[in-house]
């Protein structure tokens, strides 16, 4: 009996997750190690590092982990050639859509796990280090506009995080596209991959800028201050206006689909071993 599409996708996804397993463990060990080291420093020394410094450093570790995930997405495609595993994948009676969609899901899973655990560790450690009044300030900030169930500030952060997630997925798809284009050439494929990746992103940002200029979005971005001016926890956040955010999401989704289907077309019609 023929297996369903979802079953095939699941098997491909499991295979890609297994390919990422070892690196994910190393990334988590790295994140845990850095957090443990800095937490130990903060708690045992008289350094001026402080909770703020710790928060910044651990946030950098979170972004570092996500950057590693992003870098790994290049090799998730190219390793199929390097390790000859494409000989196992290409003869399968499945299309490029299944192959690349499973890879995308695997990378996003890795992002959730590595990013989520890194963020959780950072949050936990910052919570332990921060003074009670600092924590209250953060809650006050999130609880502004207290009339709604979910404060508008928190809502804005959730929306921005959603947009960030869509943008990250889009970036991964462009990585797949660049890698497949690079692999169509026997020489300098790494360099071609890099150039195509940069050019694709430049092209997209130019198109976005053009549309931005033509539509002239409502400049409703808000700058929010944390804490009192001059206080220990002051900071700012700029939010996009809702139309701009919606445009950003729709544009990113549409261009991602275009890049995704171009990638699968090139894989099916042009890629050779």
């Amino acid at each position, binding site marked *: 009996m023929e297996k369903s599409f979802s079953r095939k996708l699941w*098997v491909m996804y499991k295979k890609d997750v*297994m*390919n990422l*397993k070892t690196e994910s463990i190393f990334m988590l060990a790295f994140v845990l190690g850095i957090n443990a080291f800095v937490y130990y420093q903060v708690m045992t020394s008289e350094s001026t590092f402080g909770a703020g410094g710790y928060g910044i450093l651990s946030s950098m570790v979170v972004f570092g982990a996500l950057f590693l995930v992003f870098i790994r997405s290049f090799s998730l495609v190219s390793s199929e050639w390097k*390790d000859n595993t494409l000989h*196992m994948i290409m*003869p399968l*009676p499945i299309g490029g859509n299944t192959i690349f969609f499973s890879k995308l899901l695997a990378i996003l899973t890795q992002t959730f796990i590595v990013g989520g655990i890194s963020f959780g560790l950072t949050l936990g450690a910052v919570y332990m280090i921060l003074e009670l009044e600092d924590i209250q300030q953060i809650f006050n900030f999130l609880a502004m506009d207290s009339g709604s169930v979910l404060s508008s500030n928190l809502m804005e952060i959730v929306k921005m995080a959603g947009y960030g997630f869509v943008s990250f997925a889009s970036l991964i798809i462009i990585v797949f596209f660049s890698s497949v284009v690079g692999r169509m050439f*026997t020489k300098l494929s790494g360099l071609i991959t890099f150039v195509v990746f940069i050019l694709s992103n430049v092209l997209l940002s130019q198109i976005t800028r053009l549309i931005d200029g033509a539509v002239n979005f409502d400049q409703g971005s808000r700058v929010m201050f944390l804490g009192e001016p001059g206080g220990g926890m002051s900071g700012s956040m700029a939010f996009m206006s809702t139309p701009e955010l919606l445009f950003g999401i729709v544009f990113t989704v549409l261009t991602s689909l275009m890049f995704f289907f171009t990638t699968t077309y090139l894989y099916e019609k042009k890629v050779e*071993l």
Partner: protein
Amino acid sequence: MIQFKNVTKKYGKTRALDDITVDIGKGKITGLLGPNGSGKTTMIKLVANLNKPSSGEVLIDRGPISQEVKKRIAYLPEIDHFYSWMKIKDAKNFVKTFYEDWDDNMYEELLGFLELDENMAIKKISKGQRAKSKLLLAFSRKADIILLDEPLSGIDIFTREKIIETMIKDYRKGQQSIVITTHEIKEIEHVIDDAVFLKQGKIVLQGQVERLREEKNLSLVDLMKEVYGNGKEL
């Protein structure tokens, strides 16, 4: 039936196949024979859809190689193509998902016959065992077309015999087509029905093995020496 119609395959300036036209008969075991660089593997790759012809066409049962056609093909590459984390059973679970013709009974039987344990980590086993593992996956299916690219290459004599035994063990003559590329002509001479001799991307000799032997009054090995050793085309 597998048909090559005026197929040329170029890699850069090199012509791996040069205007080849040949029919590979249904339900037979066909040997693609020739020295390194003669185009054997390229022919297999074109049928497995790993390569595309530069010109001409490769057809299976008079149609292009579609997803439906790929369901009927089992392909065994020369190189090791397993993921490093795979055990034999992982490879089995992976492959069987995509093919309706997978036969668990045949798999179990072959596993014992080839003296393999499905809990073996593929990256840790010997070259011979890896060759057997590839064979296990290809022959645990009731595929209409089985493509074997150098299955005997670099394998000891005992394993080679086991591989050939596996090939003919459950072979369904008349229904199943096996295409095999090899240098080890002596070992497969008694197994193959048809032979295609390739040289620098061209077919220099082809036909039923029995007839070729009678016509030239030579064994396949001697025929091969004639074709390649003396540089003469027969």
